[in-house]
């Protein structure tokens, strides 16, 4: 059973009131108005929730509507590690994308990929089952990027689809714009998963960069701990501006409790290392 963060149960009304109190200034209300105009009530029409919580309060508070917008395009890219190298296949960005997919409502998940021949690394369903039921997956392999974007768009128009994910290296602004509009019109989220940082597209609502981070071993041993990701929110349209230029968090996925949480700062800075040394001591 996935453990649900307690603030899922906070009523949306109380959240809205709190937001109004905090940002009673004119620019904030104007921004809110513009956003409503831009989004054209599309989500309300399709009867889905406007946004879905990530389950991490620190991130959700920055996002519009207190979570990831359902009727929008989101990009997830794998970033280079500390050595500046990007792996040809990345498991961490896929894990984060699967976590997001698991948060979106019931229905089929359309997963579109490019055919990559014998050196291809397919998503592996036994691992994906930590985030969502792989029986919900409809896997589509396209030979060309045009076909992939077409399949994604067709999926966004289909009422039974909960979310659409496209795995590609191509970044086509026109296709991004079309996907964004289709997602907005139908209230179905579209995710683009990139194995490499692509050219920044201006149309997506959020862009995330995921880099796998060293995990925490059991003190005194050198085993592989729970998966840790350095998550950067590099674009946050309609969202609350944050103090940092690029807000970034170190997240840890606990496969036993099915919980994604921010690693406390004290445990991963230099102090954290000292703390572990002391424990080993």
């Amino acid at each position, binding site marked *: 059973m996935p453990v649900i963060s307690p603030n899922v149960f906070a009523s949306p009304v109380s959240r809205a009131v709190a937001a109004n109190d905090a940002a009673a200034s004119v620019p904030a209300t104007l921004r809110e108005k513009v956003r409503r105009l831009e989004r054209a009530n599309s989500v309300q029409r399709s009867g889905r929730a406007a946004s879905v919580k990530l389950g991490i309060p620190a991130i959700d508070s920055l996002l519009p509507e207190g979570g990831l917008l359902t009727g929008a395009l989101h990009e997830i890219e794998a970033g280079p*590690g*500390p*050595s500046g*190298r990007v*792996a*040809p*296949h*990345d*498991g*961490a960005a*896929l*894990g984060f994308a699967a976590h997001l997919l698991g948060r979106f409502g*019931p*229905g*089929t998940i359309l997963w579109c990929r490019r055919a990559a021949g*014998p*050196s*291809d*690394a*397919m*998503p*592996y*369903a*036994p*691992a994906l*089952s*930590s985030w969502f*039921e*792989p*029986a*919900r*997956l*409809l*896997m*589509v*392999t*396209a*030979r060309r990027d045009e*076909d992939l974007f077409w*399949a994604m768009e*067709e999926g966004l128009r*289909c*009422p*039974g*689809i*909960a979310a659409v994910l496209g795995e590609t290296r191509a970044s086509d602004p026109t296709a991004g714009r079309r996907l964004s509009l289709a997602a907005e019109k139908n209230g179905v989220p579209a995710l683009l998963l990139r194995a490499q940082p692509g050219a920044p597209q201006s149309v997506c609502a959020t862009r995330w960069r995921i*880099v*796998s*981070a*060293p*995990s925490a*071993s059991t003190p005194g041993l*050198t*085993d*592989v701990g729970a*998966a*840790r*990701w350095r998550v950067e929110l590099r674009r946050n349209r309609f969202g609350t501006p944050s103090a940092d230029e690029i807000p970034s968090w170190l997240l840890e*996925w606990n*496969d036993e409790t099915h919980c994604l949480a921010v690693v406390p700062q004290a445990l991963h800075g230099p102090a954290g290392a000292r703390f572990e040394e002391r424990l080993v001591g």
Partner: protein
Amino acid sequence: MRLADARALLPDLVTEAGEPQADLRLVEAIAGWCDRYTPWVAIDPTGGALAPDVETACSAGGFGGDAGLLLDVTGCTHLFGEGESGERALLADLVTRLSRRDLSCRAAMADTAGAAWALARFAERQADLFCPARGQRDALAALPVEGLRLEPPILETLLKLGLRRIGDLYPMPRGPLVRRFGDQLLRRVDQALGTLDEPIEPRRLPPAFRTRLAFAEPIGRAEDIAAATSRLLAALCRQFEQAGVGARQLEIALYRVDGSVDRTSIGTSRPNRDNPKLMKLFEERLGQLDAGFGVELMILSAPEVEAWSGTQDALPDQDSPGIASGMDGTIDLADRLALRLGAENVVRLLTRDSHLPERVQIAAPVSSSPAAEGAWRRIANLKNARPTRLLQRPELVEVTAFVPDDPPSMFRWRRHAHRIVRADGPERIADEWWRPRPDGSRPPAATLPPVRDYYRVEDDDGGRFWLFRDGPYQPAANGQPTARWFLHGFCA
């Protein structure tokens, strides 16, 4: 006569090499064209048309020009007129259309395939080519015995005995004939006369559901073809409703004025008789059809139908999410995607009971029933942590290990070195000895099955990988390392 002898007699003889394959293609094309008259068309097996090479074609008694087609037009002649006049009109239409394409042909119509075969080849007068109902006994009496489709030895004996006409055989007592010639002679006579049934095996299995639309004037515009398709589809869907079935496959054939036929088909993942949805699938395909100089006839058929499950599309079921229900348009989406991307590229993932990681997950067509709820979770819980991506084919890596049985301290994959900081393992997975190897052989019973030792490692960049050692470590023999390392997956 050999070619050299013929050339000696006639020095400027024009010769061409025989091409049985090209001849067969032509005969098949004509047979396909004949689908306009009846779905029940067969290429005559006694002619030389089906022979694979020149020698067998010649020994079969005919080559090229002797090719024949058998059409069962029962129940099709009313499209050309009432009763006998319709049959005559069909025959005349067939001959006119074929001769307009510079194909010389002789067509005969009779109650039995044998009688028509004999008449088409040996009838002397044009009027004899049409044999009225139950008139084959009289019509055949005057024809030579070659018209009975007999083996050459039997034919030779008959001629030696002076039995030259089929009518000569009628008064003969049957017992001595069988004793003298075996059962073939009388079987052929009975088949020709209709006392013994001779089924025609059609070239293409005729579909049970089929609608046709003939045009007074050939049509060519894409909109006209789409409109005609929609009319045909509406008629076919009514047939489906009466029969309580839905289509799994539909085929549309355009019969063009130049005699060629263009076909295209669509497939669905579940029995479908929803006119608008099928039309939407066809719209994707109609663009690929070429009307050529114009289309004079369109036939829509359903080669594959299945019993209709009796569900209504109008009532979506909120309680059963996913593609299992298929009510929410997902199946239609899958059909649309499969039509453009190929059915093998639109799949769902099913579980398989296996210990080998690469065998657990199989791609299955959308029409298959999905994995049970929680089946994946159960598999995941049985095993240690699994990678989020699995390489289709494990890739060989070079490793450095201080202790042979330990996880490596460094591995090199695709020309990049990864220094390993943390490692988990091993998890030993043995090969499934009860399953034959890929080459079909079974491992000998005495040997241990090959094993793999899987390690989950993390490099200094934080990347997590899934490596395995192919078999336990053994001391190197003749300088060859006995255990190789492979990279198999990427962890979250």
